[in-house]
Every structure is written in structure tokens, then in C-alpha cells.
């Protein structure tokens, strides 16, 4: 049956004007998590970063894991919607918005993490190139500096990318609301009237952005991967990290997207708009990426094993046989063993199926990041200075709160 424009509008705008009790509970939980994180960070700021479990030689752990993880998640949106837009996959339309939102928010978080993780956060602004009486600029040879630019570009790019297509909707809300809300949306709508010319311009702008954003997205995670592959650290010093990270990013991104969609669909009763078709297609994508991910992981390990350089083998065995073996195999299960059947077999590729698969993938991908960072660090070249790592409550809280922040932003967005 055909739904009238009014009805569609009513359905879609419902959550903006009316919010259920469930919604507020969710919001408050997310807020608590976020606040906990803020407190934890305050404590860290006051006492020193030693309240984390990091030590010598494991100077990076949860912090950078979260960073890479969230930047990875951010590939959900932009890339997907952009690619899908470029190849005119018509089923994509409802998906894009959720996707792009995820992107923006997770970049925000991903960008916040490194600022919290430095030893002296109050000086983190030195990463920004600005003329000062000191006459010193950031070190443009440093991958961290590249990160800064890449992420900043990606953030601004994807914000615009998210913003452009929303203009008409803002206009719609503007017309449907009054008071302060009306004021705000009036500003956001940029005086959108919905004239054909405006539509046409918007379409062009969207296409340009779509084309522009893809290389940016790819470059961002490649650059993130260079944080590691630019060093001499065994198992970091790898040439395939670029594509490996990008694939991993899209992989986790889509998983996150599916999850988000599933939740939205369930709580906002958008069954008519987010149909099994979407989940089915995204499921297929996820499947492909799962295979790709497995191929890369395998290739990376294989080359290491074949290269058989002693320091690398130390890390290799450390991560798959010794201390980190449990984590490693959990990761493999989460990223491959579980998703495979769920996504490969058509009968399982249901909404629930894909949701479960994505759930495990998100977990698995977080572990993957952790396994890239920590085992390499605590088994660096000189055996005498090998170490171990155990997170403290501060790190746990900060991680939890990063998820809390994501949830909160997303809730407020809907």
C-alpha cells in the first residue's frame, strides 16, 4: 500500500516531538557512563596518567585501542553511503542517515581519545600548527601529526556530508515546529524552500562530497595504520597494515551500522522503513568483509611466520600461543567463526542473525586492535625489558564512557 507524504513525515518526525520513557532511561544511562568517564579523566588529570595500567614498555594500551576502534567505526557511514550513493544502490536511502550520524559521532570520540591519552593534555593544542612567539611548528614527519590532519579533514568532510542531505528535513521540522526549536531549525535549514533548483544543487553537492569523501575515508585509516607501521616495533613494522586497517575499519563500521539500525528499528518502530532487505544487503557486505578480514589476518600472520625473524616470532607466539592466546582465539571466533554461518546461510541472514553477527564483530574488532598494540609492545626487541599489562579501573571507565558517549549522541540525534 502507498503511504502518504504526511504519514511518512508524521512517522519520521514522531521521535523528535514525542519521546518515550524508554528513551529517557537510555539517555540517563548513557549520560551516567559519560559522566563516569569525565570523572575518571578528571582524576587522571589531577594525579597523573599513572592511574592507568600502562607502564614501561607497554606505553600504549586501551587508549590507542579505543582510538583506532572508534576511527574504524566511523567508516560505517560516509564510506558506505558515499559508495552506495555513487553506485546508485536505491535500497540505501534509509540507511545512509544512520550511517553518516555514526560516522560523525565516532570520529568525535576517536578524536577525543588521543587528547585524553597524552601525558599533559593541557598542552595537546601543540598538535595544531599555529604561529607562536616560540616559532615552533608541529613535526610534520610524525604520523601523529598526520593523524591530526586526516581526522580533522575527515571530521569536517563527513559533517558536511551528513549535513547537506538533512537540510530539507530541517526545513520540514522548521515548518512543523514553533518557539525556540523553530528558531534553531530555521538557522539549520539555510532558508530551504524545496525549489527544483535547490534540489538540483543539493544533488550536485552531494555527488561531489561523495566522490571527495571516499579517498579521505580510505586515507584516514591508512594513516592511522601508519602510527604503527612507521615504527620498528616487531609485528607493527608491516606493509599490509594500510589496507588491513581500512578493511578492518569498514568491517567494524558496517557491523556498528547494522546494530544501530536494528536498535532504531526496534525502539522507534520504523519497521516499514528499515526492512529486512536492508539488513540482508548489509549482511552480504559484512560477509564479504569478514572474508577479507580473515584473508588479511591470515596473510599478516603467514608472512611473519614465513619471515621468521626472531623478535617478530617472539610476538607472534606470545599472541597466538602464550599469554594472549585466549584473546586471539576469541577474536577469530567473533570475527569469523560466528559471523560466517550467520551471514553465509541465507536462512540465518535475518535481522536478528545479522544483528548478532555484527555484535560479535564489533567485540572482535576491538580485541583485534588490542592484540595489534599490546603484545608487540610488551615483547619488544630486548628480552630483558619485556613487560606485561593490566588495565586499571580508570581505563575501563574511560572505555565504557566512550561507548556511553556514542549512545548518548546517537540518542540525542534521533
Amino acid at each position, binding site marked *: 500500500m502507498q503511504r502518504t507524504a504526511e504519514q511518512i513525515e508524521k512517522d519520521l518526525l514522531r521521535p523528535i516531538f514525542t519521546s518515550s520513557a524508554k528513551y529517557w532511561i537510555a539517555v540517563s544511562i548513557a549520560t551516567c557512563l559519560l559522566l563516569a568517564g569525565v570523572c575518571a579523566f578528571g582524576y587522571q588529570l589531577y*594525579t*597523573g*596518567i*599513572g592511574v592507568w*595500567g*600502562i*607502564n*614501561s*614498555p*607497554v*606505553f*600504549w594500551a586501551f587508549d590507542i585501542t579505543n582510538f583506532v576502534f572508534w576511527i574504524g567505526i566511523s567508516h560505517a557511514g560516509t564510506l558506505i553511503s558515499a559508495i552506495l550513493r555513487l553506485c546508485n544502490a536505491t535500497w540505501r536511502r534509509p540507511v545512509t542517515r544512520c550511517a553518516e550520524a555514526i560516522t560523525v559521532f565516532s570520529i568525535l570520540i576517536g578524536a577525543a581519545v*588521543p587528547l585524553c*591519552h*597524552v*601525558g*599533559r593534555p593541557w*598542552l*595537546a593544542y*601543540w*598538535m595544531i600548527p599555529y604561529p607562536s612567539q616560540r616559532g*615552533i611548528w*608541529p*613535526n610534520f*614527519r*610524525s*604520523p*601523529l*601529526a598526520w593523524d*591530526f590532519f586526516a581526522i580533522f579533514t575527515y571530521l569536517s568532510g563527513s559533517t558536511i556530508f551528513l549535513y547537506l542531505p538533512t537540510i530539507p528535513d530541517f526545513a520540514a521540522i522548521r515548518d512543523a515546529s514553533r518557539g525556540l526549536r523553530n528558531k534553531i531549525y530555521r538557522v539549520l535549514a539555510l532558508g530551504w524552500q524545496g525549489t527544483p533548483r535547490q534540489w538540483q544543487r543539493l544533488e550536485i553537492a552531494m555527488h561531489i562530497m561523495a566522490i571527495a569523501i571516499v579517498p579521505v575515508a580510505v586515507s584516514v585509516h591508512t594513516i592511522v595504520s601508519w*602510527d604503527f607501521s*612507521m*615504527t*620498528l*616495533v616487531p609485528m607493527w613494522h608491516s606493509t599490509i597494515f594500510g589496507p588491513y586497517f581500512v578493511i578492518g575499519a569498514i568491517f567494524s563500521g558496517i557491523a556498528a551500522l547494522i546494530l544501530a539500525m536494528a536498535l532504531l528499528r526496534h525502539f522507534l518502530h520504523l519497521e516499514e522503513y528499515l526492512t529486512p532487505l536492508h539488513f540482508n544487503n548489509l549482511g552480504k557486505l559484512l560477509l564479504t568483509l569478514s572474508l577479507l578480514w580473515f584473508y588479511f589476518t591470515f596473510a599478516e600472520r603467514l608472512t611473519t611466520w614465513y619471515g621468521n625473524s626472531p623478535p617478530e616470532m617472539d610476538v607472534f607466539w606470545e599472541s597466538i600461543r602464550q599469554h594472549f592466546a585466549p584473546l586471539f582465539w576469541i577474536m577469530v571466533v567473533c570475527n569469523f567463526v560466528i559471523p560466517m554461518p550467520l551471514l553465509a546461510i541465507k536462512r540465518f541472514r535475518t535481522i536478528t542473525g545479522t544483528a548478532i553477527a555484527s555484535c560479535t564483530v564489533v567485540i572482535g574488532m576491538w580485541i583485534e586492535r588490542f592484540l595489534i598494540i599490546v603484545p608487540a*609492545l610488551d615483547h*619488544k*626487541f*630486548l*628480552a*630483558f*625489558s619485556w*613487560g*606485561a599489562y593490566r588495565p586499571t579501573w580508570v581505563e575501563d571507565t574511560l572505555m565504557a564512557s566512550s561507548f556511553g558517549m556514542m549512545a548518548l549522541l546517537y540518542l540525542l540525534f534521533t
Partner: protein
Amino acid sequence: MSHRWGLVVDLDRCTGCEACVVACHAENNVPTAGADQAARGRTMQWIRVERTWEGDFPNPKVRFQPVLCQQCDNAPCEPVCPTYASYHTPEGLNAQVYNRCIGTRFCANACPYTVRSFNFFNPKWEMPLNLQLNPDVSVRSVGIMEKCTFCVQRIKSAEIQAEAEKRELKDGEFTTACAQSCASTALVFGDLNDPNSEVSRLASSNRSTKLLGELGTKPNVTYLERGTWQDAKNS
């Protein structure tokens, strides 16, 4: 003539007495971490004596090896620092500029020798232990990476002195704290650009090796391998 400071470690002379470690703590205001932090792997030592066992009783072999910042010419720690806190000086030192350090700890991860110490907290000295602090060296605060500087404060004051007296620096005019305390003269510090200096002479010995030299970091610290009684004649 510009200098290129270098250190030679004669593993055949080193007795593992660790006088260098204490000398470094005293000279460079390196804080003691305390039992709890030590257990968390947060001791700060700009120079450490590594010990490796080979073989079992009754024929165990032990090898002592002092490890400090290798002051690499091709240092992995330098390019990764986003703020130039870790950079290469004209005299070939890997400088660590404390006030420019924001504590990303990237340099410490990149360093294959794990010789960088990080201030996880503000260091503490139970008064009046603070009176032992060397006024020529800054006291680092929380969130700052630090490491062996080849006793740059000694280099600077010697250079200023020589400048005041309008002369060139002489070899052996000054040395690092570790080398000065080393009873068996296992550590020798000097200018590698001066072909006649003791350190250049030793560095050109046929026993000389570099720690993890295969990584291509071009260290300015040279290790002289242990010899045996038999090969003594041809050393």
C-alpha cells in the same frame, strides 16, 4: 670542529657493579619510583645493566650489558614525536626537550632499546632528600618522557668554560657521570669526530659491535664484545 659525542662500553671490563646506575640517578635527578610503582614496571633508569643467563648449573654463563640511550644517528624516536620534543641536535645527540613534551609516549614505543622513562606521576622526594637535586638539571614533572642525555649539562658547562678561555675542548676534560664512576673503565665517553680521542680509538677496535645494529639505527654507543682467554693475544 663540531663534536659527535659517543660512548664505548667494554663488555670485557664491565663487572655489573651498577655504580653507573646510581651515578646517573644522582647526576640527573632521576627519581626513585618506590616499591609499588617498581612492581608496576615503572622504575626510571637512564642506564641499566642487563643480565643474561646462558647454560645451567654447573656451567652457567652470565653476560652483563649496560644499556642506555644509544643516541642513534638514525633514531626511531625522533620522527614520531609530533612536537619536536625528541629531535637530533647538531652535535648528534637525541635531545629530549622536556618542556616541549606533551607525553604521547610514541617515542618510547618506537625506541627498540626501551631506554626511555616516562613520568607517570609527579616525582616525589621526601624532604630533605630534595636537597640532593642537581641544580644544573631540570626536575621533570608528570607526563614527561625522559632519557639519557649523555649528561648534556656537563657538555654545556665544559663548552662554556672552553669558550670563556677561548680554547678547544680537550679529550677527557669532562665525562659523563656513569663513565666517571666506572671503576673498571668499562665506559669511555668522548668525541667521535676527534680521531685521537680515546673513544674513537676504542670504537675502531675489532671487538666493536652495535646493539641491534641490524635495525639500522646507527647508534653512537659502541659495545666491545667480551673476549676469551685464548683470543686474548689477538685483541
